[in-house]
């Protein structure tokens, strides 16, 4: 296709649901009552919530129309750095919708839930192999929840040794949730600067690591898309002082089958199944943030744990040092099924996934580095980070260029993150984009850079094609208007 993929079409205006319908309209028939009528406790009755009165077709058209205003991975390329917005194969949905899975009640006795328990056990085994960390919990609901769970395990480990610790080292290239997760867990985050090469230097860690420091939380590859190449030396420094190494595995898409986290000194890490393992995320569904740990930390993992007893599987609470439950029942099981499908579908080609993700990011980086300023000009992993420095003279910002990409039919990349890069534009193409799509994205970026020089107002007014133009984020934040 030669045309720019972004265009306009007929989309419908649509009000809030509360502005639709009429009093008394209803889209649901109550089933016939099959138990005797009984009085309700007064504390359970009263005015219901303010729900709109709508028919089924009102609701279906509402969401269908809103979906036409929307953009997702099924629409086009979504290069949101550090979010790994890869395509989600439809077979996952099909398998997760099998009646045996969807009808399984979480309170079924283990004897009647062998299939799903076997799947969970197998998935744990796969994730253990991929990370090189032998014990796994599938409970956490997403990445930050995995971080919190991992840090709770770290705290439990130090407390169990009778030596509680109070600080945690956080590099400036870590994910923004890392300091929050560790602070929520009672640790004081100690910021650590990355070197001029964009990675951590071992001397920096040696200078701050002490015996009141529980460990370090490293995002690897980091948010500059660079592999923390000194990780083994850093792990040794941390271990020598009795600390633990936590790796935020949100960027694992660069490393499957290539790096064994266990072998390079990592003690605990979380994975984002909704990133690396291709389950839907964003508006597409809940996530899952399994945590993988060494044998030494296994006793502290959340309960219940899936255990194998002969040929059967059971849920066991018999782990007295466990930090307890971190999620209702057993985690977001539907997500686990989809991730397991992904792993089985690809098998040993998971390594190719990472190789192609890295290749795609480097291709974008090399093709755009004469257009956008590239602060760290060296091979990257799954994502690359540019800035708006070349466009500053035209008073065009990262935000303007990101908004203009929408007109060209692409979702904007992550912007203004990581904070260590001024005006950052963080692009993660993922392995699921073809060379044709990448070339089309690169052409759009080049066209936007030309517009920045020749007609900067076009960018400041962007986007012009979508149903909803540039939002007044300032007004929305200063005076939020919450309806419904």
């Amino acid at each position, binding site marked *: 296709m030669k045309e720019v993929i972004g265009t306009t079409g007929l989309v419908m205006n649509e009000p809030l649901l509360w502005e639709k319908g009429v009093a008394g309209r209803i889209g649901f028939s109550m089933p016939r009552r099959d138990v005797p009528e009984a009085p309700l406790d007064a504390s359970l009755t009263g005015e219901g919530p303010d729900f709109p009165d709508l028919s089924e077709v009102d609701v279906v058209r509402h969401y269908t129309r809103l979906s036409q205003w929307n953009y997702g991975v099924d629409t086009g390329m979504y290069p949101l750095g550090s979010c790994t917005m890869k395509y989600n194969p439809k077979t996952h949905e099909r398998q997760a919708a099998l009646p045996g899975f969807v009808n399984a009640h979480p309170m079924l006795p283990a004897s009647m839930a062998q299939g799903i328990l076997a799947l969970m056990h197998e998935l744990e085994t796969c994730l253990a192999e991929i990370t090189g960390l032998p014990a796994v919990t599938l409970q956490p609901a997403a990445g930050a929840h995995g971080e919190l769970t991992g840090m709770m395990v770290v705290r439990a480990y130090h407390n169990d040794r009778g030596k509680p610790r109070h600080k945690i080292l956080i590099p400036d290239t870590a994910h923004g949730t890392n300091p929050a997760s560790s602070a929520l867990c009672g640790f004081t985050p100690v910021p650590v600067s990355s070197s001029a090469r964009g990675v951590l230097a071992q001397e920096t860690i040696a200078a701050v690591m002490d015996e009141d420091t529980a460990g370090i939380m490293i995002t690897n590859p980091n948010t500059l898309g660079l592999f923390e190449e000194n990780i083994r030396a850093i792990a040794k420094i941390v271990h020598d002082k009795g600390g633990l190494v936590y790796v935020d595995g949100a960027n694992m898409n660069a490393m499957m089958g290539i790096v064994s986290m266990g072998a390079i000194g990592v003690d605990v890490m979380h994975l984002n199944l909704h990133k690396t393992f291709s389950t839907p995320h964003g508006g597409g569904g809940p996530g899952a943030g399994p945590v993988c740990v060494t044998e030494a930390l296994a006793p502290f993992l959340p309960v219940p744990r899936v255990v194998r007893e002969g040929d059967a599987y059971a849920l066991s609470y018999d782990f007295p040092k466990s930090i307890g439950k971190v999620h209702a029942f057993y985690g977001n099981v539907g997500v686990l099924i989809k991730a397991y499908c992904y792993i089985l579908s690809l098998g040993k080609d998971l390594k190719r996934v990472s190789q192609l993700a890295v290749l795609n990011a480097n291709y974008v980086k090399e093709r755009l580095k004469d257009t956008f300023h590239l602060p760290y000009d060296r091979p990257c992993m799954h994502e690359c980070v540019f800035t708006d420095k070349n466009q*500053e003279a035209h*008073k065009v*910002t990262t*935000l303007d260029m990101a908004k203009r990409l929408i007109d060209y039919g692409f979702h904007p990349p992550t912007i*203004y993150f990581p904070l260590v890069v001024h005006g950052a534009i963080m692009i993660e193409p993922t392995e699921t984009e073809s060379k044709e799509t990448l070339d089309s994205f690169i052409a759009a970026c080049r066209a936007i850079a030309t517009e920045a020089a020749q007609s900067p107002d076009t960018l400041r007014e962007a986007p012009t094609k979508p149903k909803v133009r540039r939002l007044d*984020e*300032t007004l929305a*934040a*200063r005076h939020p208007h919450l309806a419904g």
Partner: protein
Amino acid sequence: MKELNELILPDDVRFTEDHEWARREGETVRVGISDYAQDQLGDIVFVELPEAGSTFGKGDEFGTVESVKTVSELYMPVGGEVVTVNEELVDHPEYVNTDPYGKGWMIEVKPDDLSEMDALLDRDAYLRQLEG
């Protein structure tokens, strides 16, 4: 974004390397963020300030400022007791953008040691830092 020569950098305040300003007003010191800082942050949507009566050391974090782009910490240019905070910023965070050295002030501090002011950057030294 402003060019360096477009920045407002008054002579009657001192600056920190972290872009706070401090102005001596009798026995107290008024604190806010520089024109450069507000310009870099973009539209400010929320300013989190300490309670009057809190005490902090020089360089301690006393609050945060949130813009549409990011959240940044605020650091004490001098140590001392916070005697007043600018309550107007609750409803009008935009004052930090429109009038950073006037209506956008943040806290007033009774310094433990007024000579800490001397260690702060004057206008020219701050500008040199920005020119980097």
